[in-house]
């Protein structure tokens, strides 16, 4: 039994944490929150040079050729510091789409650029309000030309290549690669609750679209990739939950009221204990998800949804209570609490919202249970 990261993976964690402590401070995050840029280009380039963007991409496609476990370690560290970079869109989603379903030529074209941070990818699925579902897709591809509107698309305003879910001529959901610079693509940045990660609306008007994966197999492929991305994002969420707890704990030790540190009051202490409980449950569930992702276990779909539900719940719980422990100071722009609160609520609805993952978890457990009984 070894439900833990290896010594080498723990060394990688230290290395990434050191790099981020120098290159991704609160000021870095705030410059994206308050400034005109959609992401921190210098930080993203630094991560590429460190080799972490290409960690799980094979060497033949310009990656480092490690496993998804290393990528999980990196994700947790990025989540701890709220790194304002498009790693989830470009690496957890686009690179995974290419590795799972891309043709040899598509992989050769895009993976080296994604690993090197020279190109950014994004996944365009949603078309307005409501839960993710194939029936929501109205965009169409006819004769290799894409038309429709996608919103919101995380990092869609800065992406070079897009994986777009659209209906083929038979009305089946398929996936297409679309170059953002192509004729017929227009885009605008949208305001959101978390400006440290950008959101965009993309409008396609006969844009050239190249099939990704088998025709009509789009929903099936997307489900598999979303499961992978869910585990990686869950690690970011666990990092954010842990960091929220640390910040709240440190404040509770330092802030005095009624002549004593507020952390000595049980009302405050118990909030912090409950934050520790939810973060610990989420971490353990994420380790389960990481194991299943890396080993390709048959129970991976259940493990992915488990990790995702638990991590979303924990990050929201820890981020909101971090503000509560800080009292009024936690509601100021100057303290970092709101940065974690923003990110936790943005990630809770990314890749399909919490309630849809809850539903999928039980649906998958039911299916597995019925199979076992049969």
């Amino acid at each position, binding site marked *: 039994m070894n439900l833990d990261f290896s010594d080498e993976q723990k060394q990688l964690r230290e290395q990434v944490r050191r790099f981020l402590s120098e290159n991704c401070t609160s000021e870095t995050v705030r410059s994206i929150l308050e400034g005109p840029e959609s992401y921190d280009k210098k930080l993203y380039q630094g991560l590429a040079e460190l080799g972490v963007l290409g960690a799980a991409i094979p060497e033949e496609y310009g990656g480092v050729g490690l496993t998804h476990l290393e990528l999980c370690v990196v994700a947790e560290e990025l989540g701890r510091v709220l790194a304002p970079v498009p790693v989830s869109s470009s690496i957890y989603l686009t690179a995974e789409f290419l590795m799972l379903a891309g043709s040899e030529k598509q992989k050769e074209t895009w993976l080296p650029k994604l690993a090197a941070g020279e190109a950014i990818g994004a996944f365009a699925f949603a078309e307005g309000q409501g839960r993710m579902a194939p029936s929501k897709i109205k965009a169409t591809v006819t004769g290799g030309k894409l038309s429709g509107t996608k919103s919101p698309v995380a990092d869609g305003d800065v992406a070079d290549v897009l994986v777009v879910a659209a209906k083929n001529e038979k009305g089946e959901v398929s996936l297409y690669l679309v170059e953002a610079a192509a004729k017929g693509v227009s885009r605008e940045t949208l305001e959101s609750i978390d400006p440290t990660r950008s959101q965009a609306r993309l409008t396609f008007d006969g844009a050239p679209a190249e099939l990704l994966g088998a025709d009509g197999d789009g929903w099936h492929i997307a489900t598999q990739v979303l499961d992978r991305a869910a585990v990686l994002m869950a690690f970011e969420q666990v990092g954010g939950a842990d960091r929220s707890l640390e910040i709240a704990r440190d404040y509770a030790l330092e802030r005095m009221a009624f002549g004593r540190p507020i*952390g000595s009051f049980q009302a405050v*202490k118990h909030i912090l*204990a409950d934050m520790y409980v939810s973060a610990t449950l*989420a971490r*353990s569930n994420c380790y389960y998800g990481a194991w299943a992702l890396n080993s390709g276990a048959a129970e991976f779909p259940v493990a992915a949804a488990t990790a995702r539900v*638990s991590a979303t*719940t924990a990050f929201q719980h820890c981020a909101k209570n971090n503000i509560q422990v800080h009292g009024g100071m936690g509601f100021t722009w100057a303290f970092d609490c709101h940065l974690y609160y923003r990110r936790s609520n943005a990630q809770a609805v990314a890749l399909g919202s919490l309630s849809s993952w*809850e539903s999928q*978890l*039980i649906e998958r457990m039911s299916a597995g249970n019925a199979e076992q009984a049969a």
Partner: protein
Amino acid sequence: MDFKDTPEEAAFRAEVRAWIDANAPKHLEEELQRASFGSNGVVSEDPIAAGKAWQKKKAEAGWACLHWPKEYGGAARTPIERVIWGQEEGPYAALGGVFTIGHGMCGPTVMSWASEEHKRALLPPLASGETVWCQLFSEPASGSDLAGLRTRAVKADDGSGDWIINGQKIWTSGAQYSDWGLLITRTNPDVPKHKGLTMFFLDMKSPGVEVRPIKQANGQSSFNEVYFTDVRIPDSQRLGDVGQGWEVSLTTLMNERLSIGSGMSTGFPELFRFCMDAEIDGEPAVADSGVRSKLAQFAVKQSGLKYTGMRAISALSKGETPGPENSIGKLVAGATMQELSMFALDIQGESGVLWNEESPQQGRFQAMLMRSPATRIEGGSDEILRNIIGERVLGLPGDIRVDKNVPFKDIPTSGRKSH
């Protein structure tokens, strides 16, 4: 990352599995599997006798108290071997319920504090199940505030050196069939409360010991009150120095939380099976989106506890000490079981009120509902556990104690206000 045994672990597991397969009381397997929290385990025969018989068999083959030293009746096995044994013992582990307190708490305390002679006399029969121990700690006026206890131990004035005990304990599991008790008393009320305590072990058949079962809120009687009237204990049965009782009790309580918190059930697998079978408006309950949301939150608590346990086992397997993560076990399991049982009754609709032969799964969820309030209190209440996580794991300061440097006799109590 993997869930595989090392070759040594796999060999040990195979050995254990073969022995259990050949020796377990298989005629009890079905009722042990069916039993759950808040309902009776073995009912077809005397559960104490069945537990003792299984323990004796284990002891004779060298499988009792695996982690204890051999000279005290154990097998000097590694922590990971103990875990593997527990996994393989499966439903038969429930037979050991009668020994939970003796093996988990009293034994380790005796091992840390008793004389060599007493250890060699007391521990082997405890390991082999010939004797049963109970823990005489809580009192009507001191539960979470254990150090506020009032049972008095006074030196006999006959020069024998014996101690005379008067007072009352409560919530004592298994007192009615225990041979020995671990008893904490107050020997000096003139010093601050933590400093005036002394620990003894006591023959439960001593004159002046009276055990009265408590009728609990769920109708069962698994706990007792124990009254002491001029009970005489030889000074040789003292554990630690006079006035050192608090320190001794910490050994017991540390072990209590480890043994109560590990591998606790939340009731989720049972609830999930129930929701697969139950219907809402002609559809399986699991197809309902509201049900799914609730179930998913229960599911991630159950699996979070499971994999937290596996992380601890991983540390043991590498010869490391597990982190503080396991301190969340009872806190999560107790509250989850209570909410989960309420939800199971909700799915049953109006019939959820019934607790009879018509109730699904022999009334399992009604039994859980009625037993679960105690889970959130026994062995450290939810509030005490949160204090422990806050102070020992997160490093927060303790609460300010107004009774800290006050002689015990001057501390205000419910019936005695301060001046």
